[in-house]
């Protein structure tokens, strides 16, 4: 059933930066009641204050998504405070760059803990309330690499494939239970300009960068807001995502060779980088913005617009 964002009670995980932060502000602008979760308390408080200024109502609830009890407490907090839980956005994720066999086991495992079990905890915390209400929307921010693989990020790719499996099974169970107003949605962004890459664990010896084309986080935030009003199974964000998914389905061998090369050329730089665990075990105090400072190369309309503006300028025509 379509529902208004205004007065909806929405939990967003990973809300201290990136897509989570952009989504919080977008929903706050439309009058949502938000519970913002992440590990970084100070950054969350800042986002909550901004949401309140924008006309929403937001609570910051410092939560580690790998802690199942803490995640349950987060869902309970929503229900105990506002009487309702309308939407749960699973979004908190980390990443690791390393050759498959060179990634330390505990680091590899931590990606799965956060990205997979974090989402499992979120879904299992929200669903009992959804069932009580007979309604609810579970939005999972996955990735196009949940359908099309990439090298040097095996743990991350596996985690995003796993979420696809969880969502499919869960949706089928809800179908059997005739829970027709409980929706489970997937958002599959292509490369998004967020601090994900700045905070990545890295064992490749080469510096990480966002792979082109890069899209702004606002596009994902808008897609999530769209799903609240009109739940759909899957949404791909960024045109390159359609291309990746399409190629991997219709020409898998060619896709693997091309993508392998592209990641090697464009996801990793020729600059050396020290080994790091990034934000996997402890959150980093910096990188609390929506953006990770990557150039928005995926915004074709903007590029064409700029070209047009330049042409107008060079021709000496009046600019708007």
């Amino acid at each position, binding site marked *: 059933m379509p529902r208004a964002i*205004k*007065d909806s009670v929405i939990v967003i995980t990973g809300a201290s930066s990136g897509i989570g932060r952009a989504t919080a502000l977008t929903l706050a602008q439309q009058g949502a009641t938000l519970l913002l979760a992440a590990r970084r308390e100070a950054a969350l408080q800042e986002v909550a204050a901004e949401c309140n200024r924008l006309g929403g109502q937001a609570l910051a609830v410092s939560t580690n998504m790998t802690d199942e009890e803490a995640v349950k407490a987060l869902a309970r907090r929503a*229900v*105990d*405070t*506002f*009487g*309702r839980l309308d939407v749960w956005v699973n979004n908190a994720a980390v990443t690791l760059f390393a050759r498959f066999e060179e990634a330390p086991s505990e680091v590899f495992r931590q990606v799965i803990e956060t990205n997979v079990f974090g989402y499992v905890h979120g879904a299992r915390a929200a669903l009992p309330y959804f069932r*009580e209400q007979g309604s609810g929307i579970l939005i999972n921010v996955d990735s196009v690499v949940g359908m099309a693989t990439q090298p040097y990020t095996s743990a991350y790719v596996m985690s995003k494939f796993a979420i696809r499996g969880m969502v499919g099974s869960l949706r089928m169970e809800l179908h059997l*239970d005739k829970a027709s107003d409980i929706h489970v949605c997937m958002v599959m962004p292509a490369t998004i300009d967020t601090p994900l890459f700045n905070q990545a664990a890295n064992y490749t010896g080469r510096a990480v960068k966002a792979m082109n084309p890069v899209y702004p986080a606002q596009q994902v935030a808008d897609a999530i807001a769209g799903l609240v009003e009109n739940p759909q199974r899957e949404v791909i964000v960024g045109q390159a995502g359609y291309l990746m998914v399409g190629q991997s389905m219709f020409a898998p061998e060619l896709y693997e060779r091309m993508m392998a090369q592209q990641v090697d050329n464009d996801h990793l730089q020729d600059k050396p980088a020290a080994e790091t665990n990034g934000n996997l075990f402890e959150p980093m105090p910096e990188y609390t913005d929506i953006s990770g400072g990557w150039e928005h190369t995926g915004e074709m309309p903007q590029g064409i617009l700029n070209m047009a503006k330049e042409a107008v300028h060079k021709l000496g025509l009046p600019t708007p």
Partner: protein
Amino acid sequence: MSLRKGKLQSQYTIVDHLLMHARVSAEPLPQDAPVVILVHGVVISSRYMIPTAELLAPDYRVYAPDFPGYGESDKPDYMLNLVELAEALRKWMDAIGIEEATMLGNSFGCQIIVEFALRYPERIQRAVLQGPTIDRHARNFPAQLLRFLINAPREDSSQTPIQIYDYWLAGLPRIVHTIQMALSDPIEEKLTYLNVPTLVVRGTKDPVVPQKWAEEVVNLLPKGQLAVIPGAAHTINYSAPLELVRVTRAFLEATEPHLKHKEKMNESTLD
């Protein structure tokens, strides 16, 4: 697969030669399950408390009485004033053997609870004031009428026939009398005496109880806290009972230690 609803049954008790009707939980509950009395609002009856009562019934000993003159209770010739309504509630509790209880009221029901607590403080454990009336900044008939008219379309539309039926049962003179009574009650002067843990619940779309007034009520209460339900209107007990029950349950569970402590004190004084 929604939340389990408990069964309710009608119970009739003679209080002061008048038959008083109440809807009570028919669920098998342990003796120490907390007692929750639902106190109805202006001219209506316990009928509109049913959705809330059903959701509380599996875990709490729920009682939703009709006051004399309202709903299915006897209609005396004279009309009870606020003090007498509180007294009737106390006598009814005596008759059915409830020592003390948590009280949840909607609208004018909150005024009855506050009056009750002032007179019989030892009989109330905790209070939930949902949409407490009447905002002292608009305590006149035209303003209140306007606010209730704005509120009406924001409620679940199935409430209207219930309301009309209860209004018809009460009759016009009693309607006028009750409204006058509600309007002449300076609730803000009594709130400081409601010395038990109290949860004030308001809906963001409630024109009758604006946020400012709800906050004023909480600030006047010695042990008050506020819960705001996004999107709900004035009659949350009917239109959004799940939301009301959830915040109430959280409040009751959080204030349970206070109760246990108090019970222990009672035991020691008995010894």
